[in-house]
C-alpha cells in the first residue's frame, strides 16, 4: 500500500464509505484542503458541508445533523477544533450523546514553525476529561484506517487526532490487529514498559530496540485509545516491568501520562515518568527537531528509560 498520511487515510475511508452510505456527512471549516478532502467535496457535494471559519458552528451543526440520523464527521485543525469548539464538543456531542466524529488534523506539533496558536498540546487533556467523549490517536496509516471504519460503524461521539505528514508504519498491510478500545502490545519485556500514543509509538519501538541492544528488556504498548484508557493493558505492562514510561505529543499534564500514573499508582505502584512536550510554548522547529529537543525521539526515550531504570 502506498504510504499515506493519516489524514489522507481518513479522507480515503470517508470516500469509500460514502459511496454506499448516504448518511455520512463531512463538515469542514475552511479546512478541506488540509484535510485532503477536496475529492470528497467534489464527488459527494450533497454529503459535504462547508461552514467557513466557524468552529463552534461546525461542531454545533454536526451535532444537529447527527441528532437527525446523520453520521457527522467534523474535520478541522486539532488546535482550533479542540479548544475553540470545546464547549460544543462537551455539550452538543458528548452530553447530548450525538453521533459526531471530530477529526483533529495537523495535530500536536505538526505546525512546529507556527507557534502555540496552531499546536494542539492540550487537546488530549481537555477532551479526555469529558464524560462520554472518546479520544483516539492512531499510530500509523493501517490503524487509522481500521479505527475510522470502526467509528463510522458505531453511534457514539469521538475525537480522533492525527498529524500532518506521512509517518512510518507500525503495522503491515496484512498485520494490524485491531479491537476498538483495546491497546496493542507490540513487544513484551521485563525491565521497562513504554506506553505511547499516536506518532510516538513508532519512536518507542525504535527506543525499545536500542534498549534491547543494551540488554534492557522492554515492553511497548500502542495506547491509541487514550479514552477509554485500556486499563488492563496498562496494568499488565506495569506489573511485568520495573519502571513505566509514557510518551505523547502533548502537554505534560492531564494526558496519557497522568492517566497511566493514576492507574499504576492506585493499583501496582512503580516509578512512572511522563515523556511529553513542556508546560511552556514549544520552541520553534520541525516536528523532528522538536521531538529531539524535548527528548521525544527514539534516542531521548531510550535515555530516559535507562535513567529511570538505573534509579529503580
Amino acid at each position, binding site marked *: 500500500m502506498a504510504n499515506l498520511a493519516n489524514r489522507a487515510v481518513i479522507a480515503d475511508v470517508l470516500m469509500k464509505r460514502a459511496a454506499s452510505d448516504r448518511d455520512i456527512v463531512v463538515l469542514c471549516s475552511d479546512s478541506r484542503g488540509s484535510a485532503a478532502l477536496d475529492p470528497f467535496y467534489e464527488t459527494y457535494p450533497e454529503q459535504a458541508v462547508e461552514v467557513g471559519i466557524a468552529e463552534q458552528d461546525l461542531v454545533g451543526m454536526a451535532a444537529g445533523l447527527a441528532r437527525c440520523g446523520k453520521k457527522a464527521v467534523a474535520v478541522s485543525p486539532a488546535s482550533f477544533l479542540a479548544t475553540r469548539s470545546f464547549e460544543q464538543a462537551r455539550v*452538543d456531542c458528548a452530553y447530548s450523546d450525538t453521533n459526531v466524529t471530530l477529526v483533529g488534523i495537523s495535530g500536536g506539533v505538526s505546525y512546529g514553525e507556527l507557534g502555540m496558536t496552531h499546536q494542539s498540546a492540550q487537546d488530549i487533556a481537555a477532551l479526555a476529561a469529558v464524560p462520554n467523549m472518546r479520544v483516539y490517536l492512531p499510530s500509523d496509516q493501517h490503524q487509522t484506517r481500521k479505527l475510522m471504519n470502526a467509528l463510522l460503524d458505531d453511534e457514539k461521539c469521538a475525537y480522533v487526532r492525527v498529524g500532518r505528514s506521512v509517518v512510518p508504519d507500525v503495522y503491515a498491510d496484512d498485520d494490524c490487529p485491531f479491537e476498538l478500545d483495546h491497546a496493542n502490545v507490540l513487544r513484551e519485556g521485563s525491565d521497562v514498559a513504554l506506553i505511547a500514543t499516536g506518532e510516538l509509538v513508532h519512536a518507542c519501538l525504535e527506543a525499545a530496540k536500542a534498549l534491547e541492544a543494551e540488554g534492557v528488556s522492554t515492553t511497548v504498548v500502542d495506547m491509541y485509545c487514550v479514552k477509554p484508557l485500556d486499563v488492563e493493558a496498562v496494568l499488565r505492562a506495569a506489573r511485568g516491568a520495573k519502571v513505566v514510561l509514557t510518551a505523547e505529543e502533548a502537554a505534560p499534564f492531564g494526558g496519557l501520562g497522568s492517566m497511566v500514573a493514576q492507574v499504576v499508582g492506585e493499583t501496582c505502584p512503580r516509578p512512572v515518568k511522563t515523556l511529553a512536550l513542556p508546560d511552556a510554548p514549544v520552541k520553534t522547529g520541525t516536528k523532528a527537531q522538536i521531538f529531539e529537543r524535548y527528548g521525544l525521539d527514539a534516542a531521548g526515550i531510550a535515555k530516559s528509560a535507562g535513567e529511570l531504570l538505573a534509579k529503580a
Partner: protein
Amino acid sequence: MERKELTELEDLRWKLRGDALDMVFNGKTGHLGGDFSVLDAMLVLYFRHLNMSPEQRDDKNRDRFLLSKGHAVEAFYAVLAAAGFIDVKEVIGTYAKNGSPYIGHPNRGIPGIEMNTGSLGHGLPIACGMALAAKMDGLSYRTYCFMGDGELAEGSVWEGAMSGSNFELDNLCGLIDRNRLQISGDTEAVMKLDSQAERWKAFGWHVIEVDGHDLEALDDAFSEAEATKGAPTMIIANTVKGYGSPLMENKAGWHHQVPNAEQYEQIKAELKARAEEVRHG
C-alpha cells in the same frame, strides 16, 4: 384561530405559568422571569404548529424544537406536560430534587426534549444542522429554535445566523424572546441589542416582529414563517419578563429569584385574576 381554541389557549397560558411557579417554589430554584416571557410563544408553537406528539417521538419527520435559552426549562416542562409528554404532578413534585431526572435545564432523558441545552448560544448552529439534515433527506419537517435576547451577545449565535441563510434553510424558524432584560439588567445597558430586525435582515433572514403575548399574532407569525421560501425566518417576539405577574414584571431581579411563601401566594393570585378575566371575557 377559532374563538374556542383561542379561549382554551388563553386559559392554558395562566395555568401553565402556575405550573412553572409550583416547580420553582417547590424546587427552590429556577428562572421564572424568562419562563413567563417565553411561555406564550411556546404554547402557540406546540398547540398550533409543531408537528410533534408523544407518539411521534421517534418519527424521522417530526418537527424539531430547541430551547436554546435552556434556563426557561420550567416553562418547557409545563408545555410538554400540557402536550402529553410528561406528567406535570411528577415534575412539580420532583423538579430539582435529589436525583430527579427533571433538572434545571433541558436534557434528552425527558420525553420530547431533543438536545441538552443550557449553555447559551448553542441552539442556532444545532438547529441549522437539523434543518440541513431535512433538506438532505428530502423531509418536510421544520426546526424551531427559541433564544433569549441577552443570549444574542454570544458569537456562536451569529455563526448560526450565517449558516441559516447560507444554506437557505427556509425550514428553520428562530424566535427571540425580546424581553429587554438579562441578569445584569436592561439589555441596552449591558450590550446594545436594538435594531435586531435590521441585523437579521442584513444576515439574510426573513424577519417578523410581533407582540410576544398576542396569541393570534404569534400564530400568524409562525404561519408566515412556514410560507416563507428561500430564507430562514427570525421572529422577534416583544415580550415582558415575568409577564402575567405584576410583582415580577419587568424586574431584572426576578430572572432567577425564588419566591417566598408570601410572594408565591401573591403570584398565584395574580395568575388567578388573569385566568378569571379570560373566563368572564
